[in-house]
């Protein structure tokens, strides 16, 4: 089954980003387990893929490269980056929502004459068309709201 995931809340201000992370992890684990365990229960006998995870509204803050939680707290920002690297996930941050809220990559920084940028390279900036396309190409869109 092909999933896409929509994240609408920021880390800390909402549980959306953490719950979405756990859901994505579980979907990808189920897939992974499947290839190694033929005796898996009938309920798990499906291969899952995640077509895309789209970050919209305050969800865009998950893609910050500069956030640094205290060392004794879980680093959700880093966790998303690691999950992306491990599974080569397509993590897309809505460009309109992000630029107005202050999350930009090096390209947007140039375009807006900013000397700095703050988006993780594990995410890519793109338009809402990527969410519409994800909906068209996935069996389910799972939304994690504020």
């Amino acid at each position, binding site marked *: 089954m092909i999933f896409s995931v929509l994240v609408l809340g920021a880390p800390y201000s909402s549980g959306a980003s953490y719950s979405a992370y756990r859901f994505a992890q579980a979907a990808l684990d189920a897939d992974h387990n499947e290839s190694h365990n033929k005796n898996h229960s009938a309920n798990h006998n499906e291969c899952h893929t995640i077509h895309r995870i789209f970050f919209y509204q305050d969800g865009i803050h998950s893609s910050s490269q500069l956030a640094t939680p205290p060392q004794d707290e879980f680093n959700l920002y880093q966790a998303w980056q690691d999950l992306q690297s491990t599974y080569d996930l397509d993590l897309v941050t809505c460009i309109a*929502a992000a630029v107005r809220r202050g999350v930009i990559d090096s390209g947007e920084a140039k375009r807006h004459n900013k000397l700095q940028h703050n988006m993780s390279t594990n995410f890519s900036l793109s338009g809402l068309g990527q969410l*519409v396309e994800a909906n*068209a190409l996935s069996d389910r869109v799972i*939304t994690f709201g504020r």
Partner: protein
Amino acid sequence: MPNDNKQKPILIVNQSAPYGNANAKESLDLALASSAFEQALSILFTGDGIYQLLPKQSPDDIQSKNLLQMLKALPIYGVEQLYVDQQSLTERGITELDTQLPIVLVNSVEISRLYHDAQTVFRF
């Protein structure tokens, strides 16, 4: 109501008042993107979302864009009908919505059908 499953019909639900936060604006952005990709799309206004349809909005003095004007442009983008929860209007004592909007009042049963006919629901 669009009901072609291959097209994965989308329902966008507006339940937030305009201007107090970004929900109304960012919902509209998604509606425009959906219609640009020619997706089957229904839009429902319920709860505080019906405040988006009040006439005479004039947000110049809070330095915001007029969201009502942007809603009026939806038919140009192929969104022919805006579904409005009759009960939400009644509860709020709202009797007058903007007359230039292509509004269809819906009851509880019709709202439930909108949800069930959609493949994906986005709520703002």
